[in-house]
């Protein structure tokens, strides 16, 4: 295997892994901040317990998010040195600002929040959590601004073989950020919502701490309905945007090989991987035009025409991202999203009419649905980033020019295997701890058994 493939594989694996933890951090930090706000304003003990219980799970997740984030900050230089040289002038800026504005805020105040329960006033303690929320959202915004440059370069000129920033405001207020950040934010709400629904369902099924988990369930259901619908509406805008600035990504994720007007929407398309000939291609006529233009006609460019157009524009080469990956990630994302809209609407009815004892099977479904946001989040990123192919920065810099020339395949293979092993062990430890803390429920603090009492995974049976 060559360095380019290994570098791409390593970047993909580490960033997908990192993004398992980011949405829950963003979503759950907001939930914890809201719960603590209610606690501070009402003074009722249950809200403090809610804050601490969800806060504890938030922290376990946050720790993994933080340490895997450092890898990303270094990896551009480590395995994408030539890309870093080319874009550093433009692309480095949002990364540096992210550290200065967001990471410091998030990490410093989270430290105070964790350790400050009895040392600072309630109001100040609450403020630290809100600063964590602001910090994690600022971080999302700045990294998406950096990503926005890769998707849709703006505010730069090419001078002496590298990109040079000409207009900072164009870089910041670049087209994708207006949909990407809202999309990530609402997807984070959905992630937090289904995380809470699943854990609350587990306890409600066991009639454990009913009042506590009924409250969590209702709160999560509201967030879920708002989040899932919003993320869908924003996604629709993003699809329309793609038509104008990344038509190839759109054509690939729809498996639209030839330009159509009106364009049809694929229900299922399967091609022979060797010959490329379509085996199954069921399509709804005019439906893609409807999605793109909100009417029954309108041209959508196909893969073959775009490939020809790009060859003319940029010279010979392969400009088609792998349709199989894009097509199926998109469908995984949308299917998971539609299921979540349905489930969160049912959850809101079940939650507010106290029907949870009548529909135990629905609670069981919710426990398994905790995985759905992760499918949708990963699918979304795969299609966004793989869809950039063959570009790192769209239209100006290709992947094949970006990797570190000085690396050998052996070095990269070594680090790749190393990351896989360590990340694998860490996620096992994290899931173990998450399960233990989640199933134990809101245990009272400071009455834990003294050290060295071997009381392990399973929660006490009677509760």
């Amino acid at each position, binding site marked *: 295997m060559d360095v380019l493939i290994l570098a791409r594989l390593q970047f993909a694996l580490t960033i997908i892994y990192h993004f398992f933890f980011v949405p829950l951090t963003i979503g759950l930090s907001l939930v914890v901040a809201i719960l603590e706000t209610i606690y501070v304003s009402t003074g009722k003990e249950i809200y403090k317990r809610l804050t601490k219980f969800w806060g504890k799970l938030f922290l376990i997740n946050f720790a993994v998010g933080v340490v895997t984030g450092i890898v990303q900050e270094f990896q551009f230089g480590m395995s994408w040195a030539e890309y870093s040289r080319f874009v550093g002038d433009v692309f480095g800026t949002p990364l540096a600002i992210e550290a200065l504005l967001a990471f410091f805020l998030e*990490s*410093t105040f989270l430290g105070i929040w964790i350790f400050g329960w009895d040392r600072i006033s309630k109001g100040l303690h609450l403020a630290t959590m809100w600063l964590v929320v602001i910090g994690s959202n600022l971080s999302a915004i700045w990294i998406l601004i950096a990503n926005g440059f890769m998707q849709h370069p703006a505010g730069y000129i090419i001078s002496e073989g590298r990109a040079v920033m000409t207009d900072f405001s164009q870089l910041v207020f670049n087209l994708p950020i207006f949909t990407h950040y809202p999309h990530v934010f609402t997807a984070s709400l959905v992630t937090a919502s289904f995380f809470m629904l699943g854990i609350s369902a587990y306890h409600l099924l066991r009639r454990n701490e009913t009042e506590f988990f009924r409250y969590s369930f209702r709160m999560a259901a509201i967030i879920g309905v708002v989040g899932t619908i919003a993320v869908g509406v924003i996604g629709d805008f993003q699809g329309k945007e793609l038509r104008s600035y990344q038509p190839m990504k759109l054509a690939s994720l729809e498996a639209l090989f030839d330009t159509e007007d009106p364009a049809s929407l694929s229900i299922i398309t399967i091609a022979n991987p060797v010959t490329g000939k379509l085996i199954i291609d069921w399509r709804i006529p005019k439906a893609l035009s409807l999605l793109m233009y909100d009417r029954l006609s309108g041209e959508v460019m196909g893969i073959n025409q775009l490939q020809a157009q790009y060859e003319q524009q940029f010279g010979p080469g392969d400009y088609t991202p792998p349709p199989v990956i894009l097509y199926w990630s998109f469908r995984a994302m949308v299917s998971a999203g539609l299921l979540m809209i349905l489930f969160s609407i049912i959850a809101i009815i079940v939650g507010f009419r106290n029907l949870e004892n009548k529909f135990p099977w629905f609670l069981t479904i919710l426990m398994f649905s905790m995985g759905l946001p992760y499918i949708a989040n990963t699918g979304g990123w795969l299609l966004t980033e793989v869809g950039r192919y063959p570009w790192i920065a769209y239209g100006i810099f290709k992947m094949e020019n970006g990797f570190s020339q000085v690396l050998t395949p052996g070095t990269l293979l070594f680090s790749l295997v190393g990351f896989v092993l360590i990340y694998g062990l860490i996620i096992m430890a994290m899931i173990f701890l998450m399960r233990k803390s989640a199933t134990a429920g809101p245990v009272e603090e400071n009455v834990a058994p003294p050290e060295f009492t071997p009381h392990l995974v399973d929660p006490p049976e009677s509760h």
Partner: protein
Amino acid sequence: MSYNILWFVFITVLYTGFFILEGFDFGVGILLPFLGKNDQQRRTIINTIGPHWDGNEVWLIAAGGATFAAFPNWYATLFSGFYLPLFLILVGLIIRGVSFEFRSKNDDPRWRTLWDWCIFTGSLLATLLFPIAFANLVRGVPINANMGYAGGFFNLLNAYALLAALTVGLLFVLHAASFLSLKTTGEIEQKAKDLLRWFWPLVVIVLVIFLVTTFFVTDALQNLTPQSIIFPVFSVLAILGASYFLRKSQYGRLFLMTCFTVGFLFVSIFSILYPRVMVSSLNPAWSLTIQNAASSANTLRLMTIVTLIFLPIVLIYQVWTYWTFRKRVSGEAEKLTY
């Protein structure tokens, strides 16, 4: 002063801030198995840095991000050239970071032992590898005409770099012991103070040897500047000051002095490096400098404004966290968080 010089200074400040703060964090991690003889004591030791370690680590991320934005060629050559040590540093930071959060959330002694070892190993790995990287920046490594690193991993493990690792390793342990003498009570406090007493002469000797060696290994003697002499001298004065306050049992001032020792040590390395950012051992003309590695003036100006506004704010709230948690960690189980 040009923006290029200013940015060299900013990056010096960020890395130096990182080493002063994470220096004692790393040292505390290394001392963990030696000073904490039971779970209770190890918890206490971890809790002294509990509220701070994550905020301290951001100094590194900020330094990395700033290098990327201000000197893309430095960032690219350094990070791709020193790929393996950086990978190992990342491994160290990863296993150490999750350990703090994971360790005390499960009572199983085997679980806790596992994460204690991760804290120790991760801290030691990072403590030894950072100075190896920085020593090679000034000593010079094979960099070709295209700013590419032309050496291998074992090029980096030369005698001078290993001496740097030893020096910084010992210094961070001393720094951590002076931190713990301020932040703990009873047995741990006593052990930290005992350690300080027999450890500081060792650190003084190694530090002086390292700084003198630096002048012979690098080209500092040929290009003597006031700052390349002053800062190493300050570093030595600070460690001597530390021994003075140790004899007077003034541990607050002692800690201030170990901060200065660490700080001036890294500032010394940067001052000898200046105006280069990476020295090429193949040809001086191929060295990376604050000119040929830098971003455009426009970007540097913009980043200057951002940094001048936000870095002071960061400093203010980080100082506030140390003030908030200024009390000693007593070690009563019900008051421990991590």
